[in-house]
């Protein structure tokens, strides 16, 4: 190898600035030239602009149907007419006029919608392109009244806080377990987290597909998940690998972000007024989430954490369900729900890695543990329990 070294040519501050500005000026000049001379003119084949319209929010109230739409076409879009159930209706657009790419507007239609029935809304643009939006079951959209917020908080507590608290109440009973029992519980935790990871990722991609194209849903989900994973890994290992109580807090955070995403989706369903079947679904969901508490408790079985930490763990893991409910029913948009779920998926992946590392470290014979029937049983039990109880809530 030659000994060529980059001799540190002393570049003065001004020169450096000039070298940064030059490429930027070339870029700005190029854009100005493209806009001014329109070299793409020869590609103009007379085709109409590509149009895309996403319905992000639906509000039904005593003044009719209100829809928030986001334009995503190659040009600003004009909504010329609105149909509801195959009939043209007067509507007021707010703000009026063309909708710029990426911008949103409300379409307010004074339509006498029918409680409990389905409606189909079609927005027609000036080119005659039709964009459909189905209101599967028309019910009044919840409003941010104190009683409404309280009711939603109670539901959020039932599906979020209650099961975590119940799971953590196994803590005294589990304290006495030996090495095998500990391995089983940690493997169970990994299993249930793996289920949540798959579940959240699927939901995140599903919501991403509903959102406007300019958000690039799938890429956003992957990048947000990866970023959240890396940030939490970095934060978690800032002062050594997390163990014990700090690991429990990371598990609680991951589960909390999962519950935030769940809350958003439940709140959105609440606002959209989907059909309902019964209370047993809430019960099923609560049972489904009880394992989350056991998982949070697993890393601290060999410690004696202060009592407040249990309250904090419960609040961190279950509380976001309440916040999610509120946000989801009052300010729902598919892309933000997808983002929240993606961040949650990254957090869940981080705790899977950390719980796995914890399991590895707490066993001396590392090669033996991986094949241990106890660990395999724990993994299978974790995934299996989550899968089986999910059957209550998936129809």
């Amino acid at each position, binding site marked *: 190898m030659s000994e060529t070294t980059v001799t540190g040519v002393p570049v003065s501050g001004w020169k450096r600035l000039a070298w940064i500005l030059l490429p930027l000026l070339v870029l700005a000049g190029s854009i100005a030239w493209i806009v001014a001379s329109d070299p793409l003119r020869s590609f103009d084949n007379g085709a109409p602009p590509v149009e895309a319209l996403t319905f992000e929010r639906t509000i039904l109230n005593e003044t009719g149907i209100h829809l928030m739409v986001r334009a995503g076409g190659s040009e600003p879009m004009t909504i010329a007419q609105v149909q509801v159930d195959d009939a043209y209706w007067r509507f007021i657009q707010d703000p009026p006029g063309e909708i710029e790419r990426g911008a949103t507007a409300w379409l307010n239609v004074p339509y006498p919608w029918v409680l409990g029935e389905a409606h189909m809304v079609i927005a027609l643009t000036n080119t005659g392109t039709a964009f459909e939006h189905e209101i599967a079951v028309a019910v009044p959209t919840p409003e941010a009244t104190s009683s409404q917020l309280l*009711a939603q908080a109670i539901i959020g507590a039932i599906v979020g806080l209650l099961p975590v608290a119940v799971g953590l109440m196994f803590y005294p009973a589990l304290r006495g377990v030996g090495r095998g029992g500990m391995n089983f519980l940690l493997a169970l935790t990994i299993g249930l987290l793996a289920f949540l990871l798959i579940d959240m990722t699927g939901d995140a991609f599903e919501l991403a597909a509903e959102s406007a194209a300019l958000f690039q849903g799938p890429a956003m989900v992957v990048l947000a998940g990866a970023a959240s994973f890396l940030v939490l890994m970095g934060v978690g290992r800032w002062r050594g690998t997390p163990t014990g109580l700090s690991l429990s807090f990371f598990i609680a955070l991951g589960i909390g972000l999962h519950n935030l995403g769940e809350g958003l989706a439940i709140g959105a369903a609440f606002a959209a007024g989907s059909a309902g079947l019964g209370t047993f*679904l809430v019960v099923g969901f609560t049972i489904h989430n009880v394992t989350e508490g056991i998982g949070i408790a697993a890393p601290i079985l060999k410690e004696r954490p202060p009592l407040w930490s249990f309250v904090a763990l419960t609040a961190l893991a279950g509380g976001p369900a309440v916040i999610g409910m509120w946000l989801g029913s009052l300010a729902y948009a598919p892309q933000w729900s997808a983002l929240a779920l993606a961040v949650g998926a990254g957090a869940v992946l981080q705790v899977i890695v950390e719980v796995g590392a914890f399991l590895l470290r707490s066993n001396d014979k590392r090669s033996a543990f991986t094949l241990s029937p106890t660990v395999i049983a724990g993994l299978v039990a974790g995934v299996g329990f989550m899968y089986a109880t999910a059957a209550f809530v998936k129809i």
Partner: protein
Amino acid sequence: MKSEDNYHETLTRRGLLLGGLVAASGAAVLVSGATAQDMAGHDMSATKAEPAAAHGDMMTVGEVDYARNGFDPSTILTEWESGTVSMLPDGRTLRSFEIEAIDKEIEIAPGVMFAAWTYNGRVPGPALRAKEGDRLRITFKNFGSHPHSMHFHGVHSARMDGVPGAGLVGPGEEFVYEFDARPFGCHLYHCHALPLRRHMHKGMYGAFIIDPDPEKHPELADVARSRLLGTPENARWQELVMVMNAFDTNFDDGNEFYAVNTVPHAYAKQPIRIEKSRPVRIYLVNVTEFDPINSFHLHGNFFDYFDTGTNLTPTLRTVDLITQCQAQRGILEFSYAEHEAGQYMFHAHQAEFTELGWMGMFDVVEA
């Protein structure tokens, strides 16, 4: 009309969960003694229609720029294209028409542009009107981007049929259709280039009316004279031409807009003035594509109907609704003489067509 398959119910896991949540929240609220938002309560009184509008809020928004379109539904109702008249050596009348096919973007509904194919720049094309027995000479020039033709519903030779091989005109070319005007009645012409359906729904159609010659129908000469444009008997009548059409703006083989004479709700926003002392005659033509049948229903009144207009006595008496298959047409005659003045609605009685634009009003006035 479109298929209803997009109405499939979508039930999600959360949707089902929601029912439980609602139940749980109800219980929780009962416990807390507070009152949750009443989900069952459902009051639509705030959406009441303005009393001034006949159809309330169920209406297209805005106005069509008729000046830019180059035609106004309110004036084409009574616009007859009678051609240039001259005398043949044998003493018969020669009626010459000049028709051009033009590609033109028109505003078919407020704010909605449609890349139409037109006759003389308008949709429907000019309402051609002749007298039974006239010699007709139609010079057709194609300034469009596709081959077009004029296929007349009437009696003519195979060479004059306006189908591929007989009078189909390529872009930049021209053809002269020549035949006698018969039988008398309410007919239509349309482009018969292929694919037919596209050439039809892009706007290439128009009414073709042949008035009966009273001398040929001595037994009903008065009736024939009342239908012959230019006679004093005919001047008494208020004659209107209505072409029931529709537009598929997103090319899914289903119509987004329905109307008579192209613009949805045009006659609802600008009602057609009817002097109650004068009888009304409507030349009604159905050229709606995709939907096999269209209809006409008159409010508060009944009419006599002359299917295809080829008879001087009604084919249906005292009806308030008739249906027409694609390309079917006929003449409606009625009078509001005995009525009080006011606004009388007319529309297709397929409610879907009505609500997608095919609805108008007669403004019956004392006169």
